[in-house]
C-alpha cells in the first residue's frame, strides 16, 4: 500500500508539473521573493483580511476564491469560503479551493503553511503592508500583478487626497495632544514608533505617548498616570462591548488623568485600525476628528466614536 502510494505521488507530481499554466511569468513580491504567477489569476485565495480589503478596493472581488475567517469587509467578503484564521490557516481547505495564486502577508501568516503551499505547486505572493505608504505600494503592486493598474492609481490618488485633507485640517490644532492608544486590555499594551498606528497618530497631529523602539510596549496603570494623556483611545479586537465598557470604567477611577477628567476616553472600531488596508485612511480621519474635537475646533462630522 505504501509503495503504491509513493508511485501515485510520483505520478501526481509529474501531472502537476505538466499542468503548469501555459501563460505564467516571474515576478518579485514585496518581500523580494521570486514567484512564478499565472498571467491572469482567476482563483485567488487571500490569506489576510487586510489584503482582502485591498483586492476589493481594486474591484477585483470576482477573482477571490477564498478568504480568512475574519474577512468581514466589504460585506460581500463574508459570504466567501473560509480557510481558517490568518494565524491558523487550514492547508487542506486552501488546497481544496484549487487556487492559482495565494496572497500572503509577512506579519502573521505561518511560514510553514506558505512553504507547504509552494511545495504543492501553488504560487504564494507575499506582501507587507506596514503603514500608509506601504499600503499604497501594496495596492500598486497588486495592480500590476492583476492587470488593474488604472484602478490601483485611482485608489492611491484618493488615499493621497484624503491624507492631504486631514493634514491640512489638523494644522488648526493649538498643540499636539498627548495620546495613549491602548490595544491590549489585560495587560495594557500600546503601540511603539515602528507601527502604523503611531504613524496615524502623528499624522493626525497627536503625540504618541508610547513612542519608542519597542513595537508593543506594556504599561502599568502607574506609568499611564505618570504620562498623563489628553486622549485615551481604546482599540480592542474583542467585539464584546461590555468588556470595552468595563475598561472605560476602570480608567474612570483615575480623574488625575486629563483624558479621564475631560471625558476624552474613546473606543474605536478595531477593524479599521488593525488592518493595513486603504481603510487606514478612515482611521486617520477618525483620529483627526477626535483630536480636533478635544480642542473644541469645529469639525464637519464626528465618527468612529462609541
Amino acid at each position, binding site marked *: *500500500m505504501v509503495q503504491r502510494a509513493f508511485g501515485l505521488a510520483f505520478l501526481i507530481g509529474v501531472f*502537476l508539473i505538466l499542468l503548469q499554466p501555459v501563460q505564467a511569468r516571474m515576478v518579485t513580491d514585496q518581500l523580494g521573493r521570486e514567484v512564478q504567477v499565472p498571467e491572469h489569476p482567476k482563483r485567488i485565495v487571500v490569506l489576510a483580511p487586510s489584503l482582502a480589503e485591498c483586492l476589493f478596493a481594486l474591484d477585483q472581488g470576482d477573482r477571490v476564491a477564498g478568504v480568512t475567517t475574519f474577512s468581514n469587509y466589504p460585506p460581500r467578503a463574508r459570504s466567501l469560503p473560509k480557510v481558517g484564521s490568518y494565524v*491558523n490557516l487550514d492547508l*487542506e481547505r486552501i488546497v481544496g479551493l484549487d487556487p492559482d495564486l495565494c496572497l500572503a502577508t509577512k506579519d502573521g501568516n*505561518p511560514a510553514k503553511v506558505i512553504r507547504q503551499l509552494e511545495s*504543492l505547486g501553488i504560487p504564494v505572493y507575499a506582501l507587507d503592508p506596514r503603514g500608509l505608504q506601504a499600503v499604497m505600494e501594496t495596492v500598486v503592486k497588486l495592480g500590476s500583478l492583476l492587470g488593474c493598474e488604472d484602478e490601483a492609481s485611482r485608489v492611491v490618488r484618493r488615499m493621497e487626497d484624503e491624507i492631504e485633507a486631514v493634514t491640512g485640517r489638523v494644522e488648526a490644532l493649538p498643540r499636539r495632544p498627548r495620546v495613549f492608544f491602548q490595544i491590549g486590555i489585560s495587560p495594557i499594551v500600546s503601540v511603539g514608533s515602528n507601527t502604523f498606528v503611531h504613524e496615524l497618530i502623528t499624522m493626525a497631529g497627536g503625540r504618541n505617548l508610547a513612542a519608542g523602539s519597542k513595537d508593543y510596549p506594556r504599561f502599568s496603570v502607574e506609568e499611564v498616570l505618570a504620562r498623563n494623556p489628553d486622549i485615551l483611545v481604546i482599540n480592542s479586537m474583542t467585539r464584546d462591548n461590555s468588556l470595552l465598557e468595563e475598561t472605560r470604567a476602570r480608567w474612570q477611577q483615575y480623574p488625575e488623568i486629563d483624558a479621564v477628567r475631560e471625558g476624552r476616553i474613546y473606543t474605536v472600531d478595531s477593524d479599521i485600525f488593525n488592518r493595513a488596508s486603504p481603510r487606514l485612511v478612515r482611521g486617520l480621519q477618525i483620529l483627526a476628528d477626535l483630536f480636533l474635537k478635544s480642542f473644541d475646533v469645529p469639525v464637519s462630522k464626528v465618527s468612529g466614536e462609541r
Partner: protein
Amino acid sequence: MERFRQARTVLVSGALLLLLALLMLLGIAAGPTGFQLLEVFSSLVDGREIDRVLQTIIWEIRFPRVVLAASVGTVLSLAGLVFQALLRNPLAEPYILGISGGASVGAVLGMLLGLAFFPGVAFLAFLGSMGTLGLVILLTSGRFLIRENSLLLAGVMVNAFCSAIIVFLLSISTHTKLQQALFWLMGDLSNAQQTQVIGLLALIFPCILVIGLFSRPMNLLQMGSDTAASLGVNVKAVTLILLGVSSLLVSGTVCVVGLVGFVGLVIPHILRLMLGPDHRILVPGCILGGAAFMTGCDLLARTVPAQGEMPVGVVTAVIGAPLFVYLLMRST
C-alpha cells in the same frame, strides 16, 4: 505454554494491525474538506484518476500526516513502556527524565526568535532535550543508575524549572507567536513535511528493533535489579542502552511534533490490562496499539472542530483518561 503465548501474540498483533490499517484508511479519507472514502478506494484499488485537487489533498497532505501520527503513537507508547519497565514506576512516561522540559524551552525560544520550524526550532528543541537529559543524568551520576527514585526526582525537578522558564517566555511573546507556541506545547502534527516524516521513520525502525530485542530482559527487570542480575541480565548495560535509545526516539519525535501528552503514560497501561505483563507481547502491542490510538486521535483533532484543528494532546487526554479508568475498574 510457549505455543499458546506465541499464538496469543500473533492474534493480538493481527487484531491491532487491522485496527491500525482501518484507522489509517479513515485518516486518509477524512479531513476538513470532507469524507472521500469512495475516492480513496477507487484511487487505491484500480488506480483510476480522480479529481486532481483531491488527489493532492489525499496523498500529499493527509497521507504523510497519517503516517506521522502512527509513528508518533508508536514512539511514545514504546518509550512509555520502556520507562515504566526500567524505572519500575507506573507513573513513568517518556517525558519524565526532563526531555519535555528541555525540548519545550528550546522550541519556544526558537519560535520567539522567529526561526523557521525546520531546522531552527526543531534543532533547538533537540539540543534542549539532550541538554536536560544530560543534566538529569549528571545530577544522579555517582549513584548507581538504577536508583530510580533519584533519576525520577531529578527529572521532575528539571521539568518544573523548565516549565517556569517557558511560562516566562510565553508571557513576553506577541499573540501570533503565543498561539504557535501553545499548539506546539500541546502537540502539533501539522508542522511536519514529507522529508521530516521520512527522516523520523528512518530513526524509528532501527530503534524499535533494538527495544524489541530487549523484551525479555525488561521482563526480568520487573523482578528487581538484584534478581535480574542474578538471572544473567547486565542491568547497567541494559538500562543505559534502553534509556539512550528511547530518549533519542522521544527527542526526535518531540522536535517534529511538540509535546503530545498522555499517550506514553496511558497506552502501556491499557495494553498491560488487556494483554498481561509479558513484554514480548507488550512491545508489538505498544507499537501497533500506540500507532492506532494516535492515528484515531489525530483524525478527531483534524475533523471535529468546525474551523481549523485542535491540538492533538487535548484529544489524547480526553479519550485516554476515561478509557483507562474504565479498563481499570473492569479489571478489579
